[in-house]
């Protein structure tokens, strides 16, 4: 990104000055000089386009892991006010609706688990359905799927996948109100028929991690985390159903915007007013897809426990937290000094409620929300904690990962999957991948430095670092 186009607000915040006669909301980009320089100019273009959408409240923002997306930038955050004609955008949520991370903490230390890591990686690889074309053991015809779309992770627990204790540590208690399964197409439901409890491919993974560094001892204690502890992170979303909801509404909202006379800077920002029938239908379908994702990660957590029980029978796996990073949700925030309800789009950005927020489970209310950041299969990941909204002025949002530094095409030219897996094995990281090509596309070197991203996130006042984890075994689709 050409930094000459930006104006620096402070060490970690930048803006784009308004040109003469230009009408739009402010744009704020978070990050260091190095992180912003590594972003494509398209990120800036997309953030400016978002700032021109009707009814935007506050600023169009980009998190430190931002990169070029479709419609919104990845790492994009923007809120809209329904009372001022604000919109909801399918491009602001994306195809992988409610993609997110479930983190499980175990009672094991790395020295206890290390002798069994080969067997554990193999068991996880066999039990967790992953990769393009794979299906799970559970098959749900469309009429039965409606219960998942309304019930989310609560439905999964009722079916015997996990426990009620899990639900308390999932965003929204594992079930978001307002789902409208009737607004989800039959094709979307049919696409999901064999996909409940599957991981997917691309950047989705299931990773066994070890706490390598504690940054904040008090917050770590509140989260039940300690040095050398074994954790498991599961990164995936709403699978085929969410992809089809995104697909269906991207086209229908593009047409609706035209019909309703909404001037879009780019067609890919397909949207409709929140208060319109089209906007309400999308919100209902998107919320149903969020519940689908929460149920999916609940089933995967159950399968993970099954794999651990076979290899390490004394292991106890509790849900630390489960939080999504591709959503649009109605939340209360302070805008221009006044508390109001807004629809917050987070596209590759994580909700990060601060201490005292009533939506948080009681045990985390003093420390703030756990914010789970997925790095790469060769470097590391983080658990952050949400901070007070006087500090975080991004509608309680933070980064979601390392962010890509290199395209998949470039990564395929630079790395070979089999060689990469050997190199990681030499570093003590076991990868079980269904696709050698997919592994090459996901090479750690194709991503930004997650340490820099999380340091910038903390210094920009978006969230604070609690622990850093290193990977030990990873199942990839």
């Amino acid at each position, binding site marked *: 990104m050409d930094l000459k186009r930006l104006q620096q607000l402070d060490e970690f915040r930048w803006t784009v000055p308004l040109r003469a006669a230009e009408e739009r909301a402010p744009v704020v980009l978070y990050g260091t000089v190095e992180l912003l320089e590594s972003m*494509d100019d*398209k990120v800036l273009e997309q953030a400016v386009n978002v700032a021109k959408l009707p009814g935007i409240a506050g600023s169009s923002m980009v998190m430190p892991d931002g*990169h*070029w*997306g*479709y*419609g919104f930038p*990845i790492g994009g955050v923007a809120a809209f006010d329904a009372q001022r004609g604000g919109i909801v955008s399918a*491009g602001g949520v*994306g*195809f*992988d609706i409610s993609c997110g991370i479930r983190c499980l903490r175990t009672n094991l230390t790395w020295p206890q688990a290390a002798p069994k890591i080969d067997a554990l990686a193999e068991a996880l690889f066999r039990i967790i359905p992953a*990769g*393009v*074309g*794979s*299906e799970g053991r559970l098959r749900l015809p469309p009429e039965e799927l409606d219960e998942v779309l309304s019930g989310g992770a609560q439905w999964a627990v009722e079916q015997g996948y996990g426990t009620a204790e899990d639900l308390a540590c999932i965003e929204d208690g594992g079930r978001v109100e307002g789902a409208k399964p009737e607004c989800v197409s039959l*094709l*979307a439901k*049919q*696409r999901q*028929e*064999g*996909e409940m409890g599957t991981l*997917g*491919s*691309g950047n989705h993974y299931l990773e066994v991690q070890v706490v390598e560094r504690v940054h904040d001892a008090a917050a770590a204690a509140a989260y039940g985390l300690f040095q050398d502890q074994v954790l498991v992170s599961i990164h995936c979303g709403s699978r*085929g159903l969410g*992809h*089809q909801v*995104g*697909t269906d509404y*991207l*086209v229908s909202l*593009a*047409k609706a915007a035209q019909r309703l006379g909404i001037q879009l800077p*780019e*067609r*890919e920002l*397909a949207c409709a007013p929140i208060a319109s029938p089209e906007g309400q239908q999308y919100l209902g379908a998107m919320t149903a897809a969020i519940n689908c994702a929460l149920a999916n990660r609940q089933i995967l957590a159950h399968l993970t426990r099954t794999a651990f029980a076979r290899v390490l029978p004394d292991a106890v796996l509790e849900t630390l937290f489960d939080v999504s990073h591709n959503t649009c949700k109605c939340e209360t925030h302070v805008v221009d000094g006044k508390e109001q309800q807004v629809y917050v789009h987070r596209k590759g950005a994580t909700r990060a409620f601060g201490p005292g927020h009533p939506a948080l489970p009681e045990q985390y209310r003093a420390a703030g929300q756990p914010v789970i950041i997925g790095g790469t299969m060769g470097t590391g990941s983080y658990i952050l904690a949400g901070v007070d909204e006087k500090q975080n002025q991004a509608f309680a949002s933070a980064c979601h990962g390392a962010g*890509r530094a290199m*395209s*998949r*095409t*470039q990564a395929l030219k630079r790395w070979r999957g089999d060689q990469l897996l050997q190199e990681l094995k030499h570093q003590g990281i076991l990868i079980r991948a*269904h*696709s*050698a*090509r*997919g592994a090459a*596309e996901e090479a750690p070197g194709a991503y930004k430095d997650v340490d820099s991203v999380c340091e910038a996130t903390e210094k920009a006042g978006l969230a604070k670092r609690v622990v850093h984890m290193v990977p030990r075994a990873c199942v990839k*689709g």
Partner: protein
Amino acid sequence: MESGERSDRPGCSAYFEHDADFGVAGRGATVEEAFIQAAQAMFAIMVEPDKLRDDAQFAFEFEEPDLELALIVWLNRLLAEARRNGLALRRFALRRDGPRWLGAAWGQRWDDSLARGTEVKGATLTMLSVRLTAGQWEARCVVDV
């Protein structure tokens, strides 16, 4: 040709650069051929087409007068039908009758012998264009993986 784009021969499939995903392009003498070549490029991300049999098929139709949106509907409908039928695809056919499009695809059921690539979630409106240049149609967009 853009930086990062590759094409084995004029009038076939190609890829172009995008930070997180893939840009796919198809070229041909007709708009239908360009759409078919874009589908070839998209499905080759998921599996090597040359390794597939074509002993299973499906057909579908849709209406879309807007050429650019028709490309998106075509690609996304193929993804959905392939998933619904549990198929990996290698061959495509498309006929246009005014705003009505009649499509078909051939492939085989996924099995453990297939070398898997990366799943495509959907075709996006990003860098979407369908245009006739120097007598050749080109259809392109970014697909989300």
